């Protein structure tokens, strides 16, 4: 029983990271109606950037975000303009292919510069911990969780308290209508992609501290992130956050109570069960339009 509780705590803490990564993905979907299959690779890229800064100049991984988030934001805007914007017909399918192509390219470049060996970002404090009863929680997990909360909070503020945020939300609701009322949808899209990438950078740091990774890690990551945003409802930020927590808590508890081999399976079962009742996901709007 205590073990299940420990697993639940761990699930919530790591769930925060997934919530952050998934929120970027769902935001990009909401604004552009594209599935960014390259999101996992972008997270891994973010992790490698921080890894390089830490490895080369001993810059603290959390501190390195000051550099990597803006860099990734700019890169995101560029990628959106060069690769996503030109897609006019069949956007939904073609965007999957284009972003997949980007993922492969990023994987190849990372493999070239960093080899395919597994690495992990190891700060000096990464095994420091504090006790809760007989269980010890590592500070990095808590730090990572707080960081994710802070960034998610900032994202909500941006979306709900600024005029640019209203433009983003309007675009998410109805792209054509947004265009009609004079919102520069292309600009909003580029910014949304940039924000998605910046959150990927932040998620990447926490992911890189708590997991060992190599350039090929993005396949596993993207499959988890995609199922999270579908469970939460495509385009719903709140949904992504709640689904991420559900996923990590159930898989971690299943891993210790039943067996690790069934951990991810249970999550997929939950996904299927939810979709049977609500094909649009937990917080999704019923999708009658053809997207």
């Amino acid at each position, binding site marked *: 029983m205590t073990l299940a509780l420990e697993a639940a705590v761990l699930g919530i803490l790591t769930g925060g990271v997934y919530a952050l990564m998934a929120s970027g993905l769902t935001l990009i979907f909401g604004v552009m109606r594209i599935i960014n299959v390259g999101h996992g690779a972008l997270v891994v890229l973010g992790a490698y950037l921080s890894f390089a800064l830490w490895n080369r100049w001993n810059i603290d991984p959390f501190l390195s975000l000051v550099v990597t988030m803006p860099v990734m934001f700019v890169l995101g805007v560029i990628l959106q303009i060069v690769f996503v914007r030109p*897609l006019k017909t069949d956007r939904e399918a073609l965007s999957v292919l284009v972003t997949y192509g980007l993922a492969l390219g990023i994987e190849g470049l990372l493999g070239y510069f960093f080899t395919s060996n597994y690495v992990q970002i190891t700060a000096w404090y990464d095994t420091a911990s504090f006790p809760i009863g007989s269980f010890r929680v590592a500070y990095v997990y808590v730090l990572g969780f707080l960081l994710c909360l802070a960034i998610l909070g900032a994202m909500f503020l941006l979306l709900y308290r600024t005029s640019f945020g209203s433009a983003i939300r309007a675009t998410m609701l109805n792209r054509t209508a947004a265009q009609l009322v004079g919102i520069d949808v292309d600009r909003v899209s580029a910014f949304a992609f940039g924000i998605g990438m910046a959150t990927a950078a932040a998620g990447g740091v926490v992911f890189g501290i708590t997991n060992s990774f190599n350039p090929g890690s993005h396949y596993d990551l993207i499959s988890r992130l995609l199922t999270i945003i*579908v469970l939460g409802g495509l385009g719903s930020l709140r949904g992504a956050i709640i689904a991420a927590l559900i996923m990590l808590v159930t898989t971690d508890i299943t891993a210790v109570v039943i067996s690790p081999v069934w951990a991810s399976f249970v999550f997929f079962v939950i996904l*299927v069960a939810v*979709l049977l009742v609500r094909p649009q996901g937990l917080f999704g709007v019923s999708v009658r339009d053809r997207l």
Partner: protein
Amino acid sequence: MRLPDMRVLMGSGMVVLLAFALVLPSISPDSATTNMATFTLMYVGLATAWNIMGGYTGYISLGHAGFFGFGSYTLGLLLAKLGVAGGYTPFLFVPVAGLITALLAVLVGWFALRTRAATFVIVTIAFMFMLQLLAENLIGLTGGGSGLGFPIPPWRGDFYDIPFYYAMLVLALLGLAVSWWIRRSKFGLGLLAIRDDEDKALAVGVPAGAFKLTAFVVSAALVGMIGGVYGYYVTYIYPQFVVDPLIGISMVLMVFLGGLGTLGGPVLGAVILEPAQLWLAYHYGASRLYLVLYSAVFLLVILLMPRGIIPSVRELIARWRARAPAPQKVVAP
């Protein structure tokens, strides 16, 4: 018009290609070339099968690798449980594996087709991973991570690849025949109507649900049979290698490269991409940059020819013939 009809041209091209495919093993310089040709034909079959669902109905499944792996495991287990020895007999069980895959596809399709568009894409991915996890976890049945062995065929030397080559050829031709028939049938028209606007199709009386499910099942069964032959060919299968997302996405890529919803598009896409990939991996794999090269080529193609090669070329020819902005022929978008 004195110019030769497009269809005659295409038709004669197909006949030449088929003749070439039939004699290829006997003119192939070594077994490695036959091996490459076998994998290429495998992807011709896979892309063609995927196109029946993805191309005609517009429902993009990224999870077809699940059916590939399922067919593979089904054949392997059938052969193991029935004690079939290596040789030609295992090929007789390939249709059985296809049938069982079809049954699974009915179940998956019934569920997945409740969703549309982007959700459908991701649900198919989820199903693929569920199948992969089952293959990993049902150790008593599948052998889990230690893999499942097929009976080893008795053929030696250069002859070994030839039966597999023809098995893949038969399946690819079967897929093409089905695809061709569907395109010309009322059923096919219904599918295309669903792709253009599902709600309108429903309104004019197309039984969209049944049509989509049929296309999905046919497509999955073909993929399952090909998976079976593949397993027998490589002799050992592992969950992560037969239920491999890359196999699933390769089919999709080939279809898009050649031309979505066309008959020849998937063939063209497979014939270009698969040898290119094998060749790049073999010659540049060591430099680690081959992934970058591969991705660059494919991004360029998508950005320059978003509709695929065949529709783009067709349009070009049409324009060249008319020498004037002719009324656009309705081709696959």
